């Protein structure tokens, strides 16, 4: 069972919701918390301490210049311009390569092989016996976020429930995160941009056929347009978190709301139960 926390808009509180949800569940059962926001991973900040590191690699071509006849087939095939056959050599630009392997297939003399190239890492820790935290971290300057997200999901794969802290936006990294998910929690805030991006994220989850519910964060109790949208789209409102100085202060010092405020542990446990219910799962 995979629960994705998404939002469209950045900064709505996805990580806050994912971390608190996982923490609340871990009080009574085992759970995995997977940070899929590989470009700006922050979940691990809530759990300082020793972590296991594992590199994530993608496959890139390596040309054997002894075998290569400079025929140009690989360069003509590559739509990304990553491999180009020039006057006396083949030029490869790793930053343009999408690891599709087409250059290898197009080479008539088998001069190209695949070699691994590091693009990020997976870090893993066990803050408590019931909580496993896995983070996918893309190396700075790299573009292959989906490869790192996929590796993080694979590292966290198990028979039980996983909470996936998703990236903002609605493009490739979010799509990679949502793939195979059973339920989606959409975190929004009652601002015009929060709603505009909620709309996009909700439509993406719908396109995937993933049942979704909404968490309104930093609510000023004036959530009319968001509530109207959710009613129209038949999205249940799972939880409303108020715009509150004390909550902000707890969050700002990197602490977990649920661990400090018992009423919030109850609220996040309820969020978990509601999410499992829309996913059609059993508690």
């Amino acid at each position, binding site marked *: 069972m995979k629960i994705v926390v998404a939002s469209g808009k950045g900064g709505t509180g996805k990580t806050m919701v994912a971390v608190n949800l996982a923490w609340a569940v871990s009080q009574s059962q085992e759970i995995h918390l997977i940070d899929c926001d590989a470009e700006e991973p922050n979940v691990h900040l809530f759990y300082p301490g020793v972590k296991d590191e594992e590199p994530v690699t993608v496959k890139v071509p390596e040309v054997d210049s002894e075998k290569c006849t400079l025929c*140009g087939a690989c360069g003509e095939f590559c739509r990304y311009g990553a491999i180009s056959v020039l006057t006396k050599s083949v*030029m490869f630009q790793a930053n343009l390569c999408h690891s599709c392997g087409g250059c290898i297939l197009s080479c008539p003399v088998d001069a190209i092989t695949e070699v691994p190239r590091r693009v990020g890492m997976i870090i893993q820790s066990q803050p408590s016996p019931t909580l496993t935290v896995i983070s996918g971290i893309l190396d700075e300057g790299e573009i292959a976020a989906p490869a790192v997200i996929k590796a993080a999901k694979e590292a966290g794969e198990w028979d039980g429930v996983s909470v996936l802290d998703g990236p903002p936006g609605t493009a490739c990294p979010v799509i990679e995160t949502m793939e195979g998910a059973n339920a989606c929690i959409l975190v929004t805030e009652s601002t015009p941009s929060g709603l505009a991006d909620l709309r996009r994220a909700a439509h993406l989850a719908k396109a995937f056929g993933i049942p979704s519910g909404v968490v309104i964060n930093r609510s000023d109790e004036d959530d009319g347009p968001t509530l109207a949208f959710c009613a129209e789209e038949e999205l249940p409102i799972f939880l409303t978190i108020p715009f509150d100085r004390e909550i902000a202060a707890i969050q700002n010092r990197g602490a977990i709301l649920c661990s400090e405020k018992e009423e919030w542990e109850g609220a996040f446990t309820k969020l978990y139960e509601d999410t499992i219910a829309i996913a059609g799962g059993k508690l």
Partner: protein
Amino acid sequence: MKVCITSKGDSPESVPENRFGRTPFFVIYNDETGEVIEAINNASANDASGVGPKVVQMLVSKGVNVVVTGQVGGNANKGLEVAGIPTYAFGEAKTVAEAYAAYKAGTLTRIV
């Protein structure tokens, strides 16, 4: 020797194009006779990414020895450098023919 000039159109009277990879046309001169051999319609002009290196490979396959253009991006720059194609900026030239004449006169600034 073949000299390639990036151009908005397909003739020597066309306005030279500032962009290298996304130029609409490449006008190719034969440096020995001073005549235009061909104007190549740039098939990669509207591709999503990696246009520079793709264009360099195409020019290499056409036997181009020198490029005259406005600016080149990072990926194209590397391609032109590895391919050993000296590249010049056309500067103030108003037409492709003027750019070619300026190249012949040796007044253009080399950029790659």
